[in-house]
């Protein structure tokens, strides 16, 4: 039961991250491969504040959100100058920079050894000690996250973002500012990553750079692609499916030495197969 509950908690945290990625990559068409870096900054900020006992979970997460909003705006800004495919390279560079920072800035991040012993979240004097208690928190966060995504996408803002993906010049000709809308979308995506960072660090109680590296960013992209671009349901299905995969694979008797490689193999095959046969993902919009 605890095993299943912790799977759901993680999946719900990744739903927030998938929404963040979906908003940028799917909806606006800013092909970011550095969402895990922003997620990592949120996680490290909350961890550091809690480990040094500077403040509680809520204010720490609030600061993490603000930091991730600012960071995500800054990392997305090049997309205003660098068009389409070229932005992927820029974003790739940002991710590499972040990984280098996480690994080498040992005072703040513990370097490659990571940060152990992160205390669990405390809300209004109530400590979330068990996985089931976390499940309540992560469920509330995921539901609120999905609700916000749904509200935003059906508002004029959502329509503006879809239009920007199709044709930025036409959006300007319709009298709307592309810059402002993109910055707003990046801010919102950053906020999702900040919340996810705080939840992830306190739930796992240990974080290290491997959760926030390029592989992690690609996992997020895979979730959005397999689940389905641009839709809310896609960003829910993707994380639940891809996080279940390793668990399912443990049922197959594989030597541990090849299990990890085998998982990567499956991810790769799945991505290629989806691109060839169902590019819109399981529950995405027709591309």
């Amino acid at each position, binding site marked *: 039961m605890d095993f299943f509950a912790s799977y759901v908690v993680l999946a719900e945290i990744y739903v927030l991250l998938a929404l963040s990625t979906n908003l940028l990559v799917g909806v606006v068409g800013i092909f970011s491969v550095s969402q895990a870096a922003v997620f990592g900054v949120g996680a490290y900020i909350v961890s550091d504040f809690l480990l040094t006992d500077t403040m509680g979970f809520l204010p720490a997460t609030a600061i993490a959100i603000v930091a991730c909003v600012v960071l995500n705006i800054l990392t997305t800004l090049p997309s205003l100058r660098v068009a389409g495919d070229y932005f992927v390279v820029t974003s790739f560079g940002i991710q590499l920079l972040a990984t280098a920072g996480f690994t080498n800035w040992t005072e703040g991040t513990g370097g490659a050894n990571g940060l152990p012993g992160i205390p669990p979240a405390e809300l209004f004097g109530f400590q979330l000690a068990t996985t089931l208690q976390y499940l309540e928190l992560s469920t509330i966060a995921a539901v609120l996250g999905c609700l*916000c995504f749904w*509200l*935003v996408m*059906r*508002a*004029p*803002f*959502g*329509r*503006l973002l*879809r*239009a920007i993906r*199709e*044709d930025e*010049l*036409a*959006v*300007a*000709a*319709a*009298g*709307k*500012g592309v810059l*402002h*809308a993109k910055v*707003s*979308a990046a*801010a*919102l995506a950053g906020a999702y990553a900040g919340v996810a960072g705080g939840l992830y660090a306190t739930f796992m109680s240990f974080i290290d750079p491997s959760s926030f590296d390029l592989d992690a960013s690609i996992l997020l992209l895979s979730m959005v692609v397999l689940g389905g671009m641009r839709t809310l349901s896609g960003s829910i299905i993707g994380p639940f499916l891809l996080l279940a995969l390793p668990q399912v694979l443990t049922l197959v008797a594989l030597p541990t030495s090849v299990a990890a490689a085998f998982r990567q193999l499956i991810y790769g095959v799945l991505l290629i197969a989806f691109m060839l046969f169902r590019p819109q993902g399981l529950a995405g*919009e027709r591309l």
Partner: protein
Amino acid sequence: MSYLAVAGVAVNFGGLQALTDTSFMVEQGRITCLVGPNGAGKTTIFNVVTGFLRPAAGSVTFQGQPLVGLRPQAIVRAGIARTFQNLRLFVDLTALDNVVIALPAQFAEEPLGAIFRPLHTARMQARRREEARAVLAQVGLAERANEVVRNLSYGEQKLLTVARVLATGAELLLLDEPASGLAAGALDRVMALLRTLQDSGKTLLVVEHNTRVVQKIADEVLFLHQGQLLAQGAPDRIIADPKLAEIYFGGAL
């Protein structure tokens, strides 16, 4: 004070001079047609007036307000909107959404309003949809409101581009070849629509190749050649001018 005044505008693309010292005026309430052979600089003028291209020299003033240096969306707010030769519609959105998006100053065009005032957002959206439906009806597309744009015919898509500029509320409409590629029936619809727009108080600057269309709708014709204004006048006079006809149909001077 003239309505729209383009004065001494020059645009270079590398070594090519797309516009050299071009000056003209557009009078309020009239339909002015821009004609000239391919490469004369007609679309370049549109790009300069609507802020998509910054001229190397010259000025553009609209009702006394200088426009050079303003961003395209600011020029739309100032009252000038344009269509594109290649339409540039949002083909994955519905016809209605293509129009709604161009309505000015909407609530919840940013995430906070959408998240914290969802009911107000929904109410305002419903109102905006009604406004957009009225605009669609104006161009005769009311029936097609909920159709995704890629499923519309070419003629319908052309009408939709006009609906989109109308939705901005702009007073001066720049239409880039609104009649090209249309069958006879659709052509008549577009010409009738342009007349109706004029009657409703809009001013039109239209790039058009079809001389029959020009003759029928234009109050004034600007003849452009190799980046320069060669002649200006009533359509009959311009079209009857053998020298201009030679340039238009026979190539270089």
